[in-house]
Every structure is written in C-alpha cells, then in structure tokens.
C-alpha cells in the first residue's frame, strides 16, 4: 500500500478505533496535520484516552501523561525570536494560530510570541483531543493570569498549587482564581500571604491542603465544603475544634470525609472538647452526627487531630 492512505474516508467508528491505537504523541502529531483531522479527534473526544495535562512552569513545558503514566508526550513552549531561519522548523496551525514547530521523538517544541499565548493555545487544544484535567506542581506568580484564564474557560484542574510568597496586597487575579475553585479537585497552598493580603474563598475545591495555615481562620474553615481538609501549622485551639466538631455533629460539613489539623494550640490545663478532657478521653473516640447518619473516629497525637468520617451502615 504505497499510495497515500485516505484516512478521513474511513467509517467514523473505524477512524476512532485507529485514533485509539495511537500513542499520545502520535495523536498530537496527527492532529496538527490538518484542521479536518483535528475536528475528527474532537468528534471522537467522548471515547478518547483519559490523560493528565501537567504544566511544568519552571521549564515552560506541558507534559501529557496517560493515567497509568506509561505513555507520555511533552510540548515545550518557547519564544519565537530567532527561530524563523531554522531549517528543521515546520509551520502548523494550533487553535487558529500559525505556529512554528520542531519535532523530536517524545516531544515537540512550539514557538510563540509569549508564554501566555502558548499555554493558552496548547492546553485547550489538547483538551479538545483528550479527556483530561490539568495539573500544576509548582507555582509562579507570572502564571497567575494563565491559570485564571484556564479556569475562565471552565477547564478542570486535577491539582493546583498556589503560593502567596511575596504578595503584599490584595490581588485581583487570586480573587478570580478563588472564585472558580469548584473546577479544582485538589488545591495545595504552600506559603503564608503577606499581612496586606488575605485570600477570600468564594468557592472550594474537593480537597484542600494548606501548609503554614496560621492565617486560615476558623471563620473560613466553617464555610469550607471540601471532602478532605488538611491544615498544617495551624493556630486553631481547643475552643475552635470544639466548634468545628459540634458543627459537624449538627450536620455541617456535609461533604467531609477527612479532617487533619496539626500544630493545634491545645492547652493542657483541663480544657475540654465536646465536654471531655481532650488528652485523656478524645483519642480513638468514635462520635456520630445527631441524625445518626455518619460516624467519625478521632485520633489525637501531640498537637494534631485526625477525624475520619464514614457513613453509618
């Protein structure tokens, strides 16, 4: 079969099966052959491979992984300057933009006028070919607007890492991000905001971990709808914990499956939680909601508490 193969004349379901047989990199390389092929990938998306689209902000790469991490492909985002005379560069269309591309075995490099244009073109492009969610493992303030715009496009994040380091004042972009957290599965916040900046949670992810969480107030925690809450370096105390558990018993935190708080400010002078001495009587105690629908096992060690919740059988 030496003559060119009429791929798009195949029955649609057969074409989708051909797509399924290709690796992530082959799918991406084939999709940029023509808009017609990209459209067919888009049509086949409901049946397409599930992937993780990982943003590597440090090296300006987008890594696409299969869910089992056995198959992967990388797309580098680079500035266009100085590339036009490179003989290996080829020109293709991505998201309606003409882009220079160089090919390697397990990656391609794409050249853009700036990183923002590159990330905001390539990520939606990929998520029209594959079913998947975005993941970030590091955070740079310069990427704040990219993340905000991806959330505005209603694209879902598997994991989002945020740092406040260096921020001294209220930040509009952060407010926009915190307004769309229902699109985030797992949010990790790993630094303390400056004194002039307090993020306001107007939506919540499914899971949240806040490191150095002394800035995260009881008032915020009481509005949290996450199913997993982990606070390290917290400054909450006995009374706060008493209020949290009482709210849960009364039917609050309806989604909560696991709560972990460490560096609690427990006092050792006989103060009580739920009317019992927290050190002697609360560890390993099983409590239940007032309506009897759920139970929680409490573990206390040193200055930390874990609460694992299961429905009553």
């Amino acid at each position: 079969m030496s003559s060119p193969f009429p791929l798009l004349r195949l029955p649609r379901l057969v074409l989708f099966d051909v797509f399924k047989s290709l690796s992530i990199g082959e799918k991406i390389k084939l999709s940029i052959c023509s808009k017609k092929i990209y459209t067919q990938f888009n049509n086949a998306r409901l049946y397409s491979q599930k992937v993780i689209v990982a943003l590597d902000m440090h090296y300006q790469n987008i890594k696409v992984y299969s869910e089992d991490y056995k198959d992967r492909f990388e797309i580098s985002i680079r500035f266009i300057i100085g590339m036009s005379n490179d003989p290996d560069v080829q020109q293709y269309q991505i998201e309606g933009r003409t882009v220079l591309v160089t090919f390697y075995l397990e990656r391609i490099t794409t050249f853009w006028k700036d990183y923002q244009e590159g990330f905001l073109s390539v990520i939606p492009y990929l998520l029209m070919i594959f079913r998947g969610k975005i993941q970030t493992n590091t955070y740079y303030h310069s990427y704040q607007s990219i993340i905000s715009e991806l959330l505005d496009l209603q694209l879902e994040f598997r994991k989002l890492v945020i740092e406040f380091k260096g921020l001294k004042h209220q930040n509009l972009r952060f407010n926009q991000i915190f307004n769309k957290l229902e699109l985030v599965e797992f949010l990790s916040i790993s630094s303390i905001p400056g004194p002039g900046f307090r993020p306001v949670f107007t939506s919540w992810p499914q899971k949240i971990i806040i490191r150095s969480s002394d800035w995260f107030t009881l008032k915020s925690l009481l509005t949290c709808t996450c199913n997993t809450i982990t606070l390290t370096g917290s400054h909450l105390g006995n009374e706060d914990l008493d209020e949290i558990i009482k709210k849960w018993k009364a039917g609050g935190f309806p989604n909560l499956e696991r709560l972990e708080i460490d560096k609690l400010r427990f006092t050792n002078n006989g103060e009580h939680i739920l009317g019992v001495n927290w050190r002697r009587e609360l560890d390993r105690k099983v409590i239940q909601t007032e309506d009897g629908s759920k139970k929680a096992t409490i573990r206390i060690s040193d200055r930390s508490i874990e609460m694992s919740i299961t429905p009553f059988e």
Partner: protein
Amino acid sequence: MTSPASSSEVKYLIESSEGNTFDVSGAALRQSNTFNAMFLNIGADGPIPFTDYNEATLKKVFEYCEHSVNEENYSGPKHQDDLSKWDLNFFNEMDQKMFIDVINASNFLDIERLTSYCCERIARMLRGKNTQEMIKVITLPTAEELEAKQKVEEKKAAAAKKVAEKAAETAEKTETLEELPVQQLVQTTRNKLTRKYLSFSNE
C-alpha cells in the same frame, strides 16, 4: 440455509452486490455481531443479502473469519508485531482498495477482531513519524470531496430513515422478528447502524 447433520457444520449462503452467492460456515459467520443480531437465533431462509459489498470483498472477509474459527477466543486488539504469519500474508496480499473495502465490510458486519487488526495496521502506517511524514502517508480530502461525502451520507441517512419508518410500521404489524423477511431484517439492522453512525456525527 443448508442443513447438514451437525450444527457446527451449518453453512449459510451469502449474496454479494453482483447477485452471486457463496457458502460461509456458521462458525465463521458467528464472528459477525451484525449476523448474530439478525440471524443467530432465527435462522435464514435463502441467501443472506450483504449486497453493499462485492463478492471479492466478502470472500476476503469470510476467509479471515474461517481462518480464525479455531483460534483461541478473541481478547482485545493485538499489536501488529504479534500477528501470525498467516495474518500478515492476509493483509499484505491486499491492495489499498481491497483493504478499504474489507474495513468497510468488517465494520458493517461488526467483526471485532478483523476491524481492530485493520485499525492497528493503519496506526502502524503513522507510528514513529512526525507530522510532516504523516502528511505524506495519508491523503486529506479537499473541501469539495468532504462536501460531496457529506451529501451522500445525508442522502443515505434520509433514505434509511424512510425505510426505517416503513420497516417499523411493518414490524408492528408482523409482531415477531421471525416473521420478517430476510431482506427487511438486513435493512432494519442497516438502519440501526445508520442511526448509530448519525448519533456520532451529531456529537
């Protein structure tokens, strides 16, 4: 349908687009889910009309089915490198036109193993290539060709819809599948496939 003594030796008559008929074993035919949906439990009086496909294509498809009758149960697509010498010869001796006809027939007859091997073979044409090299391997239809293809599909779908409506009316009257003529059963199944295809188009 002929009726030899043993059920495993049952032969069915297949009719091609030229009006020619030839025998296929029941065991081979059972690899076609389309056949299973239509005839497995009710049998067929007279030749089974797969008249959208020519004799050479149907014989090629059922040659594959006859060969794989004795192979172990199909357990999902195989990588091309795992294909037997027989499988490789089977594919290598086809020209492109025959290969495409076989894919189309296999797709209609819903022969999972053959369709997946064909798909793997196409995927292999693209494997290890960059975009520029892929463009050389495949032809892309022009806008006019795509438009023409869409018109044909729309025309077919409209015709299929009419026939399906008529068949539904008749089916209501006939009540049981056993009483439907073979030709109509084929058409009904074809309509179902058309609707399945259209539902993909509309997504």
